[in-house]
């Protein structure tokens, strides 16, 4: 789960990281009021969970409260990369001398958190990582030990930070580590961490991504979820324990298991078709779940054929068949369907479906070919 800049920075601030003064506004009037209170130049920043806000016109400096009102008006009308801007952050503008990058994430291959810093902040860190990886100083953190003081110093020295700032930088690194570890984050990032003209360090932009699996430990943070990020059907799917991602093709797929679901997509493509979605119904799916899944697939108007690929293990093929039949009673569709049932109770499942005018297949390749043909009509 991604946190908005505003919530990320507020969290950082709880861990002693200095952030600019600022408040969230949902209307231009509010933005004006905040700018007035801040008394000086402000930055009006769209709060949407995508990168490239600046380029899209979603971040603007205002020198007067009136300007802030106008900028907020413009920005609140924007839709950036399909996401509507529903609020803006009005922050005191910082006197920026230097921009640093500081972030902590999970290093998958080291199986440890890694803290990273770069003297080149304010730009896309993945781009730096790609083009000039030597400009990023990395340090693995033992998860049982936590960040050590010397590691923060090594980072500061590594990015040639002036020694006057080492102490402040160390405190910020420790604060970020605490925010990361206490929130079960998979990413906690300050970009840029600014050195101001007055010689202060300030977290001007912030980003946090939390581990969905650990949200049970953070009921307070769950409230910060931005529902815009996922399409409506994706939310609906999650609520039913389904994993659904919409794609651009025309062959809907319903599969049990993530790996097999991806494989089904791949094989459709291999035989000349285009998958309309990824959909994993999970293990031991009930008839009701299957029925909801089919409704979701068919809610996509592009879908010209549906391929069911169920490998019965925990999931019983007869239960899946029942779910399909239940859904068909309600949905009433002409979309052709290809069913492949293998494993636990496959025979019973096939028997249930034999009156339902569905094509059945034995192998995955065969099923894919049939679905591709059906979609072509």
């Amino acid at each position, binding site marked *: 789960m991604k946190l908005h800049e505003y919530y990320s920075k507020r969290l950082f601030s709880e861990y002693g990281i200095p952030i600019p003064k600022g408040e969230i506004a949902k209307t231009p009037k509010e933005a004006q009021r905040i700018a007035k209170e801040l008394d000086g130049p402000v930055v009006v920043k769209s709060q949407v969970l995508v990168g490239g806000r600046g380029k899209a016109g979603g971040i603007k400096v205002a020198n007067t409260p009136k300007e802030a009102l106008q900028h907020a008006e413009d920005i609140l009308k924007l839709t950036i990369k399909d996401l509507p801007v529903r609020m803006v952050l009005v922050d005191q503008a910082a006197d920026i001398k230097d921009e640093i990058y500081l972030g902590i994430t999970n290093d998958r291959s080291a199986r440890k958190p890694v803290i990273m810093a770069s003297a080149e902040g304010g730009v896309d860190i993945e781009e730096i990582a790609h083009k000039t990886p030597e400009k990023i100083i990395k340090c693995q953190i033992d998860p049982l030990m936590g960040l050590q003081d010397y590691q923060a110093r090594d980072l500061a020295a590594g990015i040639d930070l002036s020694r006057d700032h080492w102490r402040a930088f160390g405190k910020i690194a420790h604060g970020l580590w605490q925010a990361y570890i206490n929130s079960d984050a998979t990413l906690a990032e300050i970009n840029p961490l600014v050195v101001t003209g007055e010689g202060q360090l300030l977290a001007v932009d912030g980003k946090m991504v939390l581990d969905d699996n650990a949200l049970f430990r953070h009921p307070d943070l769950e409230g910060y979820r931005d529902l815009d990020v996922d399409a409506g059907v994706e939310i609906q799917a999650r609520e039913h324990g389904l994993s659904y991602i919409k794609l651009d093709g025309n062959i809907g797929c319903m599969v049990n298991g993530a790996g097999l679901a*991806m494989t089904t997509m791949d094989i459709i493509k291999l035989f000349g078709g285009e998958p309309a979605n990824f959909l994993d119904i999970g293990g031991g799916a009930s008839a009701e779940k299957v029925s909801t899944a089919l409704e979701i697939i068919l809610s996509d108007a592009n879908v010209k054929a549906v391929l069911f690929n169920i490998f019965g293990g925990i999931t019983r093929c007869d239960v899946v068949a029942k779910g399909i039949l239940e859904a068909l009673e309600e949905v009433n569709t002409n979309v052709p369907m290809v069913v492949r049932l293998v494993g636990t109770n496959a025979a019973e499942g096939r028997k249930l479906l034999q009156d339902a005018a569905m094509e059945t297949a034995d192998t995955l390749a065969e099923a894919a070919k049939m679905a591709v043909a059906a979609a072509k009509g």
Partner: protein
Amino acid sequence: MSILVDKNTRLLVQGITGQEGLFHTKKMVAYGTQVVAGVTPGKGGEWVLSGKIPVFDSVKIAKDATGANTSVIFVPARFSADAMFEAADAGIELIICITEGVPVHDMMRVRNYLDHKEVRLVGPNCPGLLTPGEAKVGIIPGNIAIPGNIGVVSRSGTLTYEILYALKNLTMGVSTCVGIGGDPINGTNFIDTLMMFQEDPETEKIVLIGEIGGTDEENAAEYISQHVTKPVAAFIAGRTAPPGKRMGHAGAIVQGGTGLAEDKIKALKKARVKVAQHPEEIPSLL
């Protein structure tokens, strides 16, 4: 004849009285696995499966009473880290965690702790282990594989079953099938398993089933080119998966130019691994 589990495995089930735990215990016992004990804190003294398997309050007590050497974990995600620590501290040699959804910070702690212990962890979020004809530890359906000389290692669940099934249909047998799980941080990876298959005299060929996300397949390819002399066939799922979208579980995601199926396939081919275009092609490549 196998790696990790066999007919001598003395299995303990953590979370044996839960719905999942009990269901799969029945299946494992029916398959012939020696399930010697269960653990559910607070239910020590009870019995399951009509008095066949005793339940204990702790792994330590269960191990002392029954000589269990392997544990399979079915407890809910939020209690899984504790269950793994408990098993490791009790001296269990092999831990298989089936549970899905274990927080990644928990896994970083578990993994770094276990690295200093004489214990192997498989999983979490994995289907477990199957040595056909000898032992089934986890949730892999027992009837989709027959004994043989092919070692199978996989990050996936049902996709693995698909391949086991394809092999069985051609009466090709399996030494051991190892589901290492789909989470980004887990106990046993491809390389660990390849090493064991390479050393196992009864394993003659190896099937590797990977998917998008991370660089484990690339690392495995590098290892194969240097250390594995047995023929390896592979399949990588997710060639059509869009970047930035998580495909079902936390591990399967293409991020920042890494984790792409193409890169994995290229690396494997470079290591002279035959890569299938779809799972049913696997048998013909062996």
